[in-house]
């Protein structure tokens, strides 16, 4: 679906000729021309205007009745009056009607001072009420969910929240019930409105009817400051505004960026800020003492202890977690390669990809943007669940399907939340993605029938602009085929087509570009090849690597091969970690723990999966003893005898830009608040060319028949949106904390005698996990899906495909 062309027309508003894009709603055209028309219900992000509040009535010459400017597209030559008496009368009337039942309890209302109803009443109301009839009075506030309080007296029924639920998130949980003046916002039969994006309705509410449980009465608008930032809890990197009071983050709001988030946030991004200010957070360096206890230490002490890394020259493995900034990843690469004579650095949890293929998949021309999703002819979601892996993209895909007729196809092992929106959903068995993709590649050129051919036809004939979202967990063999499919579909040649990787870590792309890979230096440069994460684990367990440097990563939680990592961490002589929370592996094995920054404290840059460099800026000062990551790495480097020459975050950025050819010329000012997509810059030409699709090596895909052992199930894994340490320690999000939910097909559950919600054991080679059974229609028989990234019973303890699921006794 190509983007619409824009035509400029002229119209007259209040006697002044102004220009506007044809088809713009009058209210927006007026705003652009500095004429403010008040409104409540209008919000273009929510879809078609509803015209419910009637606040935006204006006079249009030639039309006898007043018209709602929110629903009237501008036309050439239109003459509009917003200041005539009949318009003012209508505005006065609507304000008076709105206040017939509004309690006007502004002094005790959390919205006071930032309330559109207050502002509009002041600006467009008569200032005098003739209502002496009693108003509605109801119990308030009431819980709508653990996160949201509802005050039904204040509600003006503007439709915004229910439209969000129905037309943006499409969860259809929040509704209007009853009719007329009895209408109220509610849910079905007292169920809470719990959904991944529910918090957006707080921000949409134009009165104090929907308020944030964690924010209520924590501050008044004049107590707070807004500070722009970027959420680093997942690769979607939504732009946020931190509400700051006394150096504490009290709230997170969206800082709308159409190229990134479209003005929405998920509830993790909106509420997990609480993790910044909780007791569980580490705010001082910790050093393991003689008795084996981690105890608070001074920075000098900690740096000295960590400086012992220098004694393990050539024998240090480093892992960089997804929340590291580009600068941090870059400096860690220098520390390893220049200061510790080691090339054993990795940031990918799912194994190494050959450098030529990495470069080819990251080629600037092949990159799709977030907005391409919305306007593509076809979107294929491959091996990823956007709702879990980059939630805000789930909304973007829905928007494309709903508004622009994007044809959606899903190919995944696990059923997707997007299946109901998809024209085609294909399930391959866990572990069989390579076979699936080679079948698809073949189907692109050969005739045939079946769902793979249907998909091939959709991709080939459904319009040129195809966007493929793919998950980082795809194995390297799958990526080689993906590249060839992209080549066959000509995705690199089309502006609106391409690939968009959903990586495992929030800044995975930036970290790789900064050189935190075993087979590439900064800018995907050739380098001495080191060990990848799995090899580091094996080498450490074998004693070949003696020290580990873990920057924002806990292998027991974030990586696979748990048993091997357990052995490695136990064997390592020195483990130095940066961490915000003491997760399992860090608590048990780290010898030195540096307190990590939160994204609200960090200064640096990160890269969005579509290549957009974004800035993290300091919103609050560091709590406790926390220091900037770049600074700590610099001090650690000094302790091992290397001077990185970084005295400010800006200096680190300059070094990065100098080292990455395709960032050449970029400045922090250019990146600014909206970011810059480097693939669109001239410097992008400096990106080293990857292996041509025709030459990528494809390993043998014929894996042979699947072993059918006594009704064992093929296990796939998923990482829930809520599976993160930040969520676990945020008091408001405690109710979401992810546990091991074992998703079973109804047939398998019946065969195994397992009931929905019962406790089950998942076993493999003597390893047992405990979990709760979830019977889910759509899970193919023979498959089972297990959660990873959770604190307890994570599926990363299982190494092989086939598992046994049994009832707990």
């Amino acid at each position, binding site marked *: 679906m190509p983007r619409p062309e824009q035509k400029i027309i002229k119209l007259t508003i209040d006697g002044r000729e102004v220009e506007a894009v044809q088809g713009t709603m009058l209210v927006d055209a007026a705003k652009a021309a500095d004429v403010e028309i008040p409104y409540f219900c209008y919000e273009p992000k929510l879809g078609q205007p509803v015209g419910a509040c009637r606040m935006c009535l204006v006079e249009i010459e030639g039309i006898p009745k007043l018209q709602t400017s929110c629903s009237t597209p501008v036309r050439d030559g239109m003459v509009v009056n917003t200041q005539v008496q009949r318009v003012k009368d209508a505005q006065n009337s609507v304000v008076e009607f709105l206040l017939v039942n509004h309690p006007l309890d502004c002094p005790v209302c959390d919205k006071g001072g930032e309330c559109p109803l207050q502002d509009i009443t002041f600006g467009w109301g008569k200032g005098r009420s003739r209502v002496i009839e009693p108003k509605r009075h109801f119990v308030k506030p009431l819980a709508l969910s653990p996160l949201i309080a509802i005050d039904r007296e204040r509600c003006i029924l503007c439709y915004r929240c229910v439209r969000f639920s129905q037309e943006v998130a499409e969860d259809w949980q929040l509704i209007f019930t009853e009719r*007329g003046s009895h209408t109220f916002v509610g849910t079905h039969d007292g169920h809470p409105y719990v959904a991944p994006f529910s918090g957006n309705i707080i921000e949409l509410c134009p009165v104090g009817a929907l308020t944030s449980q964690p924010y209520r009465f924590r501050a008044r608008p004049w107590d707070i400051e807004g500070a722009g930032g970027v959420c680093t809890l997942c690769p979607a990197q939504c732009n946020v505004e931190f509400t700051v009071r006394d150096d504490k983050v009290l709230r997170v709001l969206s800082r709308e960026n159409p190229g990134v988030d479209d003005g929405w946030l998920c509830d993790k991004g909106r509420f997990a800020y609480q993790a910044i200010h909780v007791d569980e957070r580490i705010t001082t360096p910790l050093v393991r003492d003689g008795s084996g206890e981690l105890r608070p230490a001074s920075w000098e002490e900690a740096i000295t202890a960590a400086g012992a890394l220098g004694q393990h020259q050539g024998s240090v493995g480093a892992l960089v977690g997804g929340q590291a900034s580009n600068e941090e990843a870059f400096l860690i690469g220098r520390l390893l390669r220049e200061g510790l004579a080691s090339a054993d650095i990795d940031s990918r949890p799912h194994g190494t990809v050959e450098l030529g293929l990495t470069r080819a998949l990251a080629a600037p021309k092949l990159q799709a943007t977030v907005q391409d999703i919305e306007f593509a002819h076809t979107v294929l979601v491959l091996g990823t669940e956007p709702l879990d892996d980059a939630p805000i993209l789930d909304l973007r895909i829905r928007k494309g399907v709903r508004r622009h007729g994007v044809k959606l196809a899903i190919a995944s092992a696990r059923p997707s939340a997007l299946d109901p929106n998809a024209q085609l959903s294909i399930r391959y068995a866990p572990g069989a993605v390579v076979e699936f993709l080679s079948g698809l590649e073949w189907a692109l050129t050969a005739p045939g029938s079946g769902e793979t051919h249907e998909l091939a036809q959709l991709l080939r004939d459904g319009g040129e602009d195809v966007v493929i979202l793919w998950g980082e967990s795809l194995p390297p063999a799958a990526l080689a085929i993906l590249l060839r499919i992209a080549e066959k579909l000509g995705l690199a040649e089309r502006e609106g087509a391409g690939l968009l990787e959903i990586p495992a870590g929030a800044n995975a792309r930036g970290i790789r570009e900064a050189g935190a890979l075993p087979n590439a230096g900064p800018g995907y440069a050739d380098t001495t090849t080191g060990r990848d994460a799995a090899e580091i684990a094996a080498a450490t367990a074998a004693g070949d690597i003696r020290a580990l440097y873990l920057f924002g990563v806990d292998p027991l939680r974030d990586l696979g091969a748990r048993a091997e990592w357990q052995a490695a961490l136990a064997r390592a002589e020195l483990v130095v970690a940066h961490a915000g929370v003491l997760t399992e592996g860090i608590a048990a094995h780290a010898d030195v723990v540096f307190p990590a920054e939160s994204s609200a404290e960090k200064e640096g840059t990160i890269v969005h999966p579509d290549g957009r460099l974004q800035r993290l800026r300091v919103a609050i000062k560091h709590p406790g003893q926390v220091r900037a990551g770049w600074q700590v790495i610099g001090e650690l480097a000094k302790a091992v005898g290397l001077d990185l020459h970084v005295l400010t975050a800006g200096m680190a950025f300059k070094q990065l830009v100098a080292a990455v050819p395709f960032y050449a010329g970029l400045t922090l000012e250019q990146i600014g608040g909206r970011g810059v997509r480097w693939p669109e810059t001239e410097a992008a030409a400096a990106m080293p060319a990857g292996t041509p699709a025709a030459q990528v090596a494809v390993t043998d895909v014929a894996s042979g028949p699947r072993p059918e052992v006594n009704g064992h199930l093929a296990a796939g894994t998923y990482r829930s949106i809520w599976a993160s340490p930040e969520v676990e320690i945020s008091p408001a999000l405690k109710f979401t904390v992810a546990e091991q939910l074992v998703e079973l097909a109804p047939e398998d559950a019946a065969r195994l005698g397992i009931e929905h919600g019962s406790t089950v054991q998942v076993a493999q080679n003597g390893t047992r996990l405990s979990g709760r059974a979830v019977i889910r229609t759509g899970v193919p028989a023979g498959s089972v899906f297990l959660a990873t990234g959770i604190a307890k019973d994570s599926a990363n303890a299982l190494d092989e495909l086939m598992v046994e699921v049994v009832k707990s006794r």
Partner: protein
Amino acid sequence: MPHLLFDRIDEPGLNTIPVYERRGGYSALRKALQMPPEAIVEELSQSGIRGRGGAGFKMGQKASFLPKGEMAKYLTCNADESEPGTFKDRELMQKSPHTLIEGIIITTYATGIHHAFIYIRGEYQLQADILDAAVAEAEAAGYLGENILGSGHSLKLVVHRGAGAYICGEETGLLDSLEGKRGNPRLKPPFPAIEGLYAGPTLVNNVETLGTVPTIINMGGADYAKIGTEGSTGTKLISVSGDVQRPGNYEIELGISSREIIYGLCGGPKPGRTVKMWFPGGSSSPVLLEQDLDLSYDFDTLAKAGSMLGSGAIIVVDDSHSAFEVMQKVVKFYAHESCGKCVPCREGTNWTNKFLARIEAGESTPMDLDILASVQSQIIGNCLCVLGDAMAMPVGSIVAKFRDELEAEIEAARERANALPLTDTEDLLALSAH
């Protein structure tokens, strides 16, 4: 005057095809299928027939707004007859359902529509059952379905039962309801003829309007236009109720005097009573008085008199009832039926309702009538659909025409409530400014 729709409508078995056909039924369809579709639209235009549901929009013109060519287009017959005082469609659907079905088939053929719905209010269970049976019968007889009578025209007709909401009689509220949603009216534009049901072009017509189509085809549009007045052609089914001796449905030629209807056909109020006021077109129409009885009953005359013909439902109120009582019933109804979508209607009807409760409780003053009237004028023209206006117009007219009586009612209510007598303006100001 010819009886076009009600002629011997009580004939037993008329709701079945054999009797209907024996009386000439489905001959108009056969004739129409021989005509080019545009010619049928032209006949409808020539007939001058105006919509019988309430708005009085010219049917031929509406049909011509529909885009030509093959696409997903729909026809929806509005059988949600909910305007208080209106029950004419009920009689037609119950006794001669095939008249409606034939009209629908002809209209869809003329406009290239292959999917039609009859949206009937849920309370009309008997009539819906009869329509269901008639549709099944027509399908079996080849009048519905694929390739109707070999013409190449196909039509699927579905009888859809509502569930009790006045607002679903508003055409866009009806469409939302038919799409399975709450029956909230939509913003117009886009008008249904451009973007209606399932976002496709949609023709929405009243039962009686569609039921008249076979007659127009049989007579020819030009001849039909000779009946009635120039601006209001044809006959009209009217429902007369309230304080008359012979309430019920009548078919009249548009343009006869209102007195002829109320007194001539319906026998007027009970002996000894006189007409105090009458709603000429359902409870949404501004009331008229005894002195207006000689007005010609047609669209234009009633509009000129400040009211409207609406759905053709005349409610007569005699002098045994108080204006306040009538107003209260009207207001309660609209407050109950407001869908709640737009502010002036939702809050305005609700506020007016509370206002009248306050009058009844003896807690208001005659000055409050000014506020009451002003609230009505604040509703009119500012709403999303016409429901708000439908309350505000009759209420406004009652306040204007029965001001003295209402003031007396307020004083009487105050006395009943033992409120202090109003002695000076200071008191009044103190009250109304509070």
